[in-house]
């Protein structure tokens, strides 16, 4: 069984070329779920660094809207046992404009996070153990927003079926994953991953009481550097409150020359 997994990993490494061969998945549901996650992750390896702008529209049940805007720079961590480095600069709402957040992410432990408040020129290390809390008052939790790493979950393949709308012409692997991080807000998530590009198309989040809490759909995938797919529109709907958040990415740039020096406390102070 372990050999089977290794074969699968080697295979996926061997086919890291623009055209992916169809891969053989193990039969056992747990191994199969893991193999799908590894494949999905492997196809996004090597992006190096990226920068992008994000806009969120928050909607409550009365239909009122509020806008958040930020810019994010990311440096891929080549170590699969550790998370990526990221720097976020907030632009809207205007009362927090200029605030910057530096994150050294980890898979199963708390991230290292520093916040810089330009109004009082103060840098502070902040607690990051609230990964289940709302990000900027939106329906996205911090943990939904952070990068997906294979080692964050246990997996169980459930079935293959037509992907959810609007991707019903594609076939999806439906996999259940169980967060290993003890402070996660979820008992489990169900992920629809298409069988062509191994991109996530939909995620259902189940809260601590195992109610269906939220559904996330990924739309408007675009290809960068002939290799890296990025969804440009992510819609999160909270089924318990009726609130929703539409998140839009724009101006993606890859391999812009960012290095570890751009993700230090010194760079946080002058992030603009």
């Amino acid at each position, binding site marked *: 069984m372990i050999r089977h997994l290794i074969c699968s990993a080697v295979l996926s490494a061997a086919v890291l070329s623009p055209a992916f061969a169809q891969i053989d998945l193990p039969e056992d549901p747990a191994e199969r779920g893991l193999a799908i996650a590894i494949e999905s992750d492997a196809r996004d390896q090597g992006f190096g660094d990226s920068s992008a702008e994000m806009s969120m529209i928050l909607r*409550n049940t009365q239909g009122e809207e509020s*806008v958040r805007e930020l810019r994010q720079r990311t440096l891929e961590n080549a170590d699969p046992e550790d998370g990526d480095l990221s720097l976020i600069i907030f632009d809207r709402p*205007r009362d927090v404009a200029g605030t910057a957040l530096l994150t050294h992410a980890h898979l199963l432990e708390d991230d290292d996070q520093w916040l810089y408040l330009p109004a009082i020129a103060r840098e502070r290390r902040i*607690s990051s153990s609230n990964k289940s809390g*709302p990000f900027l008052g939106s329906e996205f939790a911090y943990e939904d927003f952070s990068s997906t790493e294979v080692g964050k979950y246990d997996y169980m393949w459930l079935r293959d079926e037509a992907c959810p709308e609007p991707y019903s012409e594609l076939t999806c692997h439906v996999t259940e994953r169980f967060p290993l991080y003890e402070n996660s807000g979820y008992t489990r998530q169900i992920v629809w991953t298409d069988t062509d590009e191994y991109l996530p198309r939909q995620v259902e989040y189940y809260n601590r009481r195992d109610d269906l809490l939220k559904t996330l759909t990924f739309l408007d995938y675009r290809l960068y550097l002939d290799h890296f797919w990025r969804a440009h529109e992510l819609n999160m709907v909270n089924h318990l409150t009726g609130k929703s958040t539409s998140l839009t990415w724009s101006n993606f740039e890859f391999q812009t020359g960012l290095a570890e020096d751009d993700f230090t*406390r010194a760079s946080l*102070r*002058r992030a*603009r």
Partner: protein
Amino acid sequence: MGRGIFTGLVCACAATFAALPAVAEMEYDASGYIEPELQLYFEDPSDSRQENANLSIAGQLELEIFLNPDQTLVVTPFARIDGRDDERTHFDLREAYYEAVFDRFELRVGLKKVFWGRTEAAHLIDVINQTDTLESVDGEEKLGQPMVNVTVPTEFGIFDFYWLPYFRERQFPGVEGRPRIDLPIANDMALYESSREEEHQDFAFRWSHYVGAWDFGLSHFYGTGRDPLLTPGLDGNNQPILIPYYAQMQQTSVDVQATYGPMLYKFEGFHRWQLGENWTQATGGIEYSFYGVGGTPGDLGIVAEYIWDERGETGMNPFQNDAFVGLRWAANDIQSTAVLGGGIFDLDGNGYALSVEAERRFGENFFLQIETRLFIDVPPSDPFFSYADDDFLQVRLARYF
């Protein structure tokens, strides 16, 4: 000489400006706010020239000009027009500096803000900038400090070197101002230990680093102390006043924070040499956060800190054996609703001060802050006694753009 150097710096900045390519081609970012303020006092004032209500308006503009990816100009003018107190009507360049980032170091020249410290209630080791006491009694508003700052980031932490060529005096409220100390403070009669007065050349150094969950810093300051001693005197009409006296000091400080999940441990302290004496002051405590309070997305944070001064009550320091307890509730909603309540308790029984601050965003660009401060059971011997009749409620509504 000192002023000459300062003028030289300003000229250098201006020359940089003049040498810029066509202004239209530069990238820049502008933001700011306008903020009317209402203050209401609950008790009649101790001085008949003071009132029970005040209106005022403040505004700030922040301009960032990107000369190229490694060079930036930052200019942040601030102004307040006060309905009652001429001293509180003031203008300041919070920041006006040139920044250049090189491979091995970073250079900043001009007026700038720098914050040192870890704790929430008392900012003992934060000595670079003069406090703007006209803006708030909590000491968190600062005047821009002229400086040349060289930052050297290394794998062993960040080394900061500061040359501070010009000193800025603390400005106190005028006779019509509230809250204030009962005796008026004569801003324009300030005295100095150094014959070079505000042109004394000050220097400072800081090293800060982190290892795992531990963030720490070691700092040293040499120069004019930012906090004046207030000495009794007489004005031109033989009326009693307080005269600020700025003494030289040297101070070495350490600061530490340990971050373990929802628990933060914080400490900062200094040893200071001033006017032939030397002593230690320190503060430390914990901050703990409860997440998802009562099944809501809201957080509740608790801060408990102790503040200590080796000199005891002889030091004219209101925080010599005091405890601070604060609660912060953040709703984590779209409007960023939050309430902060806190109290500082003198453990020698000399009264306590309470404050409650509530804030919320309205629409996209309006931000409302309501704050009340109460001074309770403060005896006449305590340095805070002057504020005992200055309990107040303050409402600020900012429009950001």
